[in-house]
């Protein structure tokens, strides 16, 4: 039996009907309709589904959607200001941090969370911070450079 709930994603309240066991990722992708967040491993290993929950990172594939009711959810769609990309997004493009793009939404969210808690990380801290996000294309170097290029600037 589905239950009614309200999920607040990127500042917009979405009334939804969900099965109780629905994950946050499935709710945001399939019910709300925001498909930026990806399903990679579906096992909390790869970070492709990463979102922010009240500003803190969560692997949304392994979090129950109904637990997020009452919290502010942020996905990659919420990072840009209209057509203007966030500095971190621009840096990813400029530094070669994007190839196939599948990990990118989770990487951007993860890096946003990292910079929120540690605004001027060292390269080692960036690599540690992003270790829950797997990328099979870039070799990580462009991603790390992108994060470092905006670090300390906010």
């Amino acid at each position: 039996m589905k239950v009614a709930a309200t999920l607040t994603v990127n500042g917009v309240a979405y009334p939804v009907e969900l099965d109780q066991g629905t994950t946050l990722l499935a709710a945001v992708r399939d019910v709300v309709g925001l498909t930026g967040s990806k399903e990679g491993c579906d096992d909390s290993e790869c970070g492709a589904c990463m979102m922010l929950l009240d500003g803190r990172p969560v692997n949304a594939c392994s979090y129950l959607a109904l637990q997020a009711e009452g919290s502010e959810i942020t996905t990659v769609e919420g990072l840009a200001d209209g057509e203007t990309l966030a500095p971190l997004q621009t840096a990813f493009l400029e530094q070669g941090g994007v190839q196939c793009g599948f990990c990118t939404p989770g990487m951007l969210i993860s890096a946003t969370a990292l910079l929120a808690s540690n605004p001027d990380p060292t390269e080692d801290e960036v690599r540690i911070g992003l270790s829950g996000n797997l990328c099979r294309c870039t070799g990580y170097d462009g991603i790390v450079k992108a994060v470092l290029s905006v670090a300390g600037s906010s």
Partner: protein
Amino acid sequence: MSVSAFVTASSVDDAVAALAGGARPVAGGTDLVVGARSGKSTLPESIVAIHRIAELRGLAESADGLRLGPLTSHEEICASDVVRSRYAALADAAAIVGSHATRAQGTVGGNLMNASPAMETGGPLICFGGEVTLRSAAGERTVALDDFFTGPGGTVAEAGELLTAVHLPAPAARTGSAYLRLEYRRQMEIAVVGATAVVTVADGRVTHARVAMTALAPTIRRVPEAEAALVGSDGGAGAIEAAGAAVAAAATPISDVRGSAGYRRAMAAVIARRAIESALSRARGEAS
């Protein structure tokens, strides 16, 4: 089986009532939901979400020690100055759980109740003399963490009991502690082998020692023989060697994809020695 009932508790009384009715608790979901997604288990039919219960949050230091609400996240533990300065081994452990998403959502209460023999915070919590409070509809009891784990995934907590607090007594002056693990990568990892040491040093002698092993037995547990090798000693190389050997001798590891029993036993001595060395140097106020 699918989830047919989901309630969000706003108080401990609400949560305990739901547990009495057969619901299972979820907080950060980093074990319960991950286990279901990976196919290790299915989600419970009835779930009570406890993550909004304010009285289960937060760290509070008092004259007799530190109280951790079970919803305290690994991130909050590592960020706590009190934990970092007085309970360093616990900060060591919390800092290497999963990734920053795991640490932001995963809680110390969930970590304990999940009872993995490889989980990181168990050794430090045991070695600091930790106790937990368990509450059910029938009442409340306190259990020493020394007596808490019964096997992989098993604790003495009964189905209707909710872990409502973790209490650590105040460590004596000149106490140092460390937790470290053998790992194949730095994050998104669990201990291949882990060791915790908590030592107190006075006048050049070790006056108190607690040593626990992780991923080396069906539960995380103390190794009294290693503690005996340290207490009364000068904390020198001979005592550390003997304590490490005692951990290896007490280990009853399994062989699995992450390491053979023989490898784990050999590494038990090494990791235990390193944890003890680090704890001693912290107790002496040396750089660590």
